[in-house]
């Protein structure tokens, strides 16, 4: 029963991909080659609704991503190495953005450790790196809704000594102003590279003329 449906969906997605390739045509290939940006998704993926609670007491959902570029990183506050390293690199990068670009860019740190982190504790944590950073978290189920859509992962466990173990994707996710998962910047993260990659991504947005 399910087999024919799967086959049908399979051929449908092939058709859609072909359609997209035909529609984008040559300029897209040129842009890809010239900016040589492997971080960018071939086809941006629209995000469906999700619901987390942000560190400023307001919900974090699709609506809040509309009209801005978002750089999002998954982690947890008890992470001493990768998370503070990435957040300080992101803060350095944020400081190098022009005011116009900064105005339509938001930085979001999503904690995948709801056992220990709360929107309130995240407020102080993210602001330590940059007062404009936003923290957010939710239940495991709520987190999974967003994590899955961004092709990311996290896992929670406990060591034999009773210490919490949190594993998470380390890429910085880029979401475009149309709330589409747009690019994935892989670790390790360095401010200069993040800045260059981000500016290149913005420049090569379809519809934006390449200078």
């Amino acid at each position: 029963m399910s087999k024919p449906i799967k086959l049908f969906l399979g051929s449908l997605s092939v058709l859609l991909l072909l359609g997209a390739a035909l529609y984008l045509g040559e300029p897209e290939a040129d842009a890809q080659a010239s900016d040589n940006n492997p971080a960018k998704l071939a086809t941006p993926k629209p995000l469906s609704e999700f619901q987390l609670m942000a560190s400023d007491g307001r919900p974090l959902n699709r609506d809040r991503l509309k009209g801005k570029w978002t750089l999002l990183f998954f982690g947890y506050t008890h992470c001493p190495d990768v998370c503070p390293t990435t957040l300080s690199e992101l803060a350095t990068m944020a400081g190098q953005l022009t005011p116009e670009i900064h105005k339509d860019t938001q930085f979001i740190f999503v904690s995948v450790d709801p056992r220990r982190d709360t929107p309130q504790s995240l407020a102080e944590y993210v602001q330590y790196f940059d007062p404009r950073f936003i923290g957010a978290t939710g239940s495991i189920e709520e987190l999974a809704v967003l994590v899955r859509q961004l092709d990311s992962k996290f896992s929670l466990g406990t060591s034999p000594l009773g210490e919490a173990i949190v594993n998470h994707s380390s890429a910085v996710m880029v979401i475009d102003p149309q709330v589409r998962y747009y690019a994935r910047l892989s670790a390790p993260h360095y401010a200069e590279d993040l800045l260059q990659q981000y500016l290149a991504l913005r420049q090569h947005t379809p519809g934006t003329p390449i200078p």
Partner: protein
Amino acid sequence: MNLYQRLATLIPFLLLACANLAQATEDLEIHDAWAREAPPGAAVMAGYLTLHNHSSETYTLTNLQSPQFEKVEIHRTEERDGMTQMIKVSQVILGPKDSVRFQPGGMHLMLMKPKKPLKAGAKISLTLSFSGETSMQVTLPVKKAEASIHHDMQTHMH
């Protein structure tokens, strides 16, 4: 046994300990040691350093201790199964003329549960113990962040 006799029995051990310490300081060298200031709410800090073995002996780092922390471990940040995770490392073997770098996103000193919060400017004293009763003292200055160490290092190497 009177006090002098007792002290006399200790002498060989004291000499041995001194010899080990002197040898270790000559053979092993630590630099670029620092610890990242813990952001608010975090009960763990990461420490970094580079350890050189100038000798033709092998040294095995087996234990770390600091009076300012409840526990100090060696961890390695690793990418496994599409996720970043910290793996506990039980010992670090330093072969002849070898060096090991503890750095952000790699191997790090996991400084757990500080007895008092340590802010930028504070100093952490750490004892590194190697197999064969060799030990070394190091001071890690606490810093807010060391952005883009990777790029700095590249410039130094040119």
